């Protein structure tokens, strides 16, 4: 039989300081990055025009399009290679006092300038997006609402379903994942689109999923091993669910990585976020959620908790140095 981590007995809780440090080292610079540079919002949110063209003429490159577009009155065009080498994404963001009509006209103006410069038929427009400022503003609002209300509902569910200590620990672990993902967005300058917002929600769902499986086991083991100390029960539960955690992460990662690599330009950004989320979600459910739960139980011991305050070694764990 092929087995992973079966009957493992790692003292995972003893790695909590390292885990906290790793998380802080990743998250804090990322959030500072974010505070300085801001999120790279997509056209959907800022309002503006996005045109993707497929060039048939080798003369069409970013360096030749930029001056032509600027001369044609497109103030600050962002030009990117989109997928294959001869496909380009041209973005013209809206200046704040523009009207809806402007985004329409910009789309037409870009096409006109390109035709004038490189000749008709030298390119094909394969995608156009023109978003007015009103729609962009609404979408920003909606995205924030979806995130806030979605998180709120899940947190509420967890608090209903579990005792508050477990719920809080799960929520804090999910917060860790959100912050880590925002840091990831900042490091890679991934465009913040509505699809990425959807990915964020998916990540939170997934991460909680992992944490819940572990916590369910903790609840069960607290009843089962009446004589064990809390520290030991936590470690045992993490170890028992480790095969499942690793295998599910493996299959989900396989699916999301296939999409990142093979899914094309539109999917790669959001799916990179999902992939990262699966990794951080797995990390947090193993190394963050349970230590937080333990810290909470130490500070505010619940009925179930035996010896949370005087944490000692427990069956199934190696000898650990208790936290002072």
């Amino acid at each position, binding site marked *: 039989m092929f087995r992973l981590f079966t009957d493992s007995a790692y003292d995972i809780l003893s790695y909590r300081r390292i885990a906290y440090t790793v998380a802080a080292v990743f998250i804090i610079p990322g959030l500072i990055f974010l505070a300085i540079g801001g999120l790279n919002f997509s056209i959907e949110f800022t309002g503006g025009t996005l045109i993707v063209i497929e060039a048939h003429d080798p003369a069409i490159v970013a360096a030749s399009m930029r001056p032509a577009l600027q001369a044609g009155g497109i103030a600050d065009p962002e030009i990117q290679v989109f997928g294959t080498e001869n496909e380009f994404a041209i973005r013209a963001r809206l200046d704040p006092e523009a009207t809806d009509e402007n985004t329409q006209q910009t789309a037409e103006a870009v096409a006109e300038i390109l035709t004038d410069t490189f000749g008709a038929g030298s390119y094909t427009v394969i995608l156009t*997006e023109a978003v007015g400022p009103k729609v962009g503003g609404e979408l920003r609002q909606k995205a924030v609402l979806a995130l806030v209300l979605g998180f709120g509902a899940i947190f509420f569910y967890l608090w209903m379903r579990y005792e508050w200590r477990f719920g809080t620990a799960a929520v804090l672990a999910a917060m860790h994942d959100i912050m880590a993902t925002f840091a990831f967005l900042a490091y890679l300058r991934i465009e913040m689109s*509505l699809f990425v917002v959807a990915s964020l929600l*998916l990540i939170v769902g997934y991460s909680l999923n992992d944490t819940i499986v572990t916590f369910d086991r903790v609840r069960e083991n607290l009843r089962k091993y009446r004589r064990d100390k809390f520290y030991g029960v936590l470690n045992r539960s993490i170890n028992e669910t480790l095969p499942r955690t690793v295998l599910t992460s493996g*299959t989900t990662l396989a699916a999301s990585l296939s*999409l990142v690599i093979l*899914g094309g330009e539109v999917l790669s950004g959001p799916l990179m976020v999902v992939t990262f989320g699966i990794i951080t979600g797995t990390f947090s459910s193993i190394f963050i959620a349970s230590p937080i739960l333990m810290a909470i139980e130490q500070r505010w011991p619940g009925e179930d908790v035996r010896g949370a305050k005087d944490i000692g070694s427990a069956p199934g764990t190696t000898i650990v140095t208790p936290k002072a």
Partner: protein
Amino acid sequence: MSTIRNRLLIIGLLLAAAAYALWPRTVTRMEQGPDGEPVEVVEKRIPLKLGLDLQGGMHLAVEIDQSGGPVANPGDALDRAETVIRSRVDEFGVAEPLIQRVGTERIIIELPGITDPAQAKDIVSRSAFLEFRITDMQQQFADALPAIDAALARAGVRPMAGERSRTESAIDLILGTDSADRQSDSTAAESDSTVAESGATSETVFSELLSYQQGGIPGEFLVPEEYQAHADSLIRHPAFQRALPRGLTMFWGDEPISQGARPFFPLYALQSRALITGEELSDAQAQIDQTMNQAVVNFTLTRRGGRVFGRATAENVGNYMAIVLDGRVQGRPPVIRSQISRNGQIELGSSQISDAQDLALVLRAGALPAPIEIVEERTVGPSLGRDSVARGQRAGIVAITLVVVMIALYYRTAGLLAIGGLVFYVIFALGGLAMIDATLTLPGLAGFVLSLGLAVDANVLIFERIREELALNKSPRTAVDSGFQHAMPAIIDANVTTVIMAAFLFQFGTGAVQGFAVTLIIGIVASLLTAVFVTRTFFLIWLQRRSPSAQLSI
């Protein structure tokens, strides 16, 4: 044994329902033929709708445009606009269009497979408000020009720098070339002198922009094309509107005309009261006028409209009547030679039959109750859509293969049962999508592939549990039973959180993201169904067939 039979029966029924939902069926739809006319297309296909991002097409969000002044009842106007747009799109011939009210002030229009986005946009957003108005026969506007100039000058409008000489030469050009014609028309000559006189004074901010066309129609003026924007801003000036004689409204011509060497824009002073509007139209057809080699639209009025129009034209024999479409005068106003009743013709500047067809279409479908503006536009070319589908499929196949290999390696026979369950999962999920008539989008496709990874999670939870129970030296049968039982709370909790997230996504997302949410929800339901019911049935059969003492391959 009977429980197994019952279980198989239920699985069979579910499978049949999914297969029925997915069975290719014949659909008839309208599509635009090569000649621009809608044709019926009959085809057989799996009833799963592809979103615009996968099949190419256009997405528009429109609102009532209130920038030109508030609309009296915007809600009602939007309702009527929706009806008009729907009938226009139907006449245009788009396969499976979607026209939908969103919120209180927006209409979403989705037109799959559109090849000419500009044309489609024009047809949807054109007001198509048709009016017939008599020109300013009494030359009231020409008489009022000095007053208008003075009013504008008092309001602080300065003449355009350095334009005087050029405009004058333009006037000279026209006056000089056709003085005989001009003199034959006494009214035109009269107004001519007005302009000439006022041109000499310093306060001619507006009238200096005007000149006349040969064989002038009363109330018709010409503005050099380069000054059109400036003249238009003066017309909108409150001082101009105050000084404008009552009962008159200014309209621009539809297209510039060449007069001498330069292009001019015609400007018309028309009666504010329209003889009749497009509401009384019963039919409109496009045609090429052979003699003029010009595209025309022939229209027919309703019976009531014909009576009203007949009376009005009888009173106006000898007068010029402008045909105004969306605030622009179409062609030169013709003279009314005799009473007109139900039939008439609109001349288009071009000889393109397609222009006339588009106009006839929007006229038939009716005018929009108020101007609309496009607040969002998204066009996906068909090649990108095809590309996305191909890539999505490839990624999906690779993902499925990887997942299958991992599960089979790790869980052996039990893994194969789980893979069998996955096949059911795919059929159930696709069937569910077809049943609720969901639209498959690119994010949706991604959601589907991802949910494959998640779908095995329930199996993994159960299998791990069974292994643990076996490790406690329980019999295979007991281990399987308690494995399924003990894994349930975690499975339920985990899936409820994802469903909550997806529900919020659906509530607040737009098209593509909603597709993502829907496939996730359907995926979770299907995966629960397969993991706790289908795979368990497989287990029961497996346990029954093997010898009770053998090791469980898990």
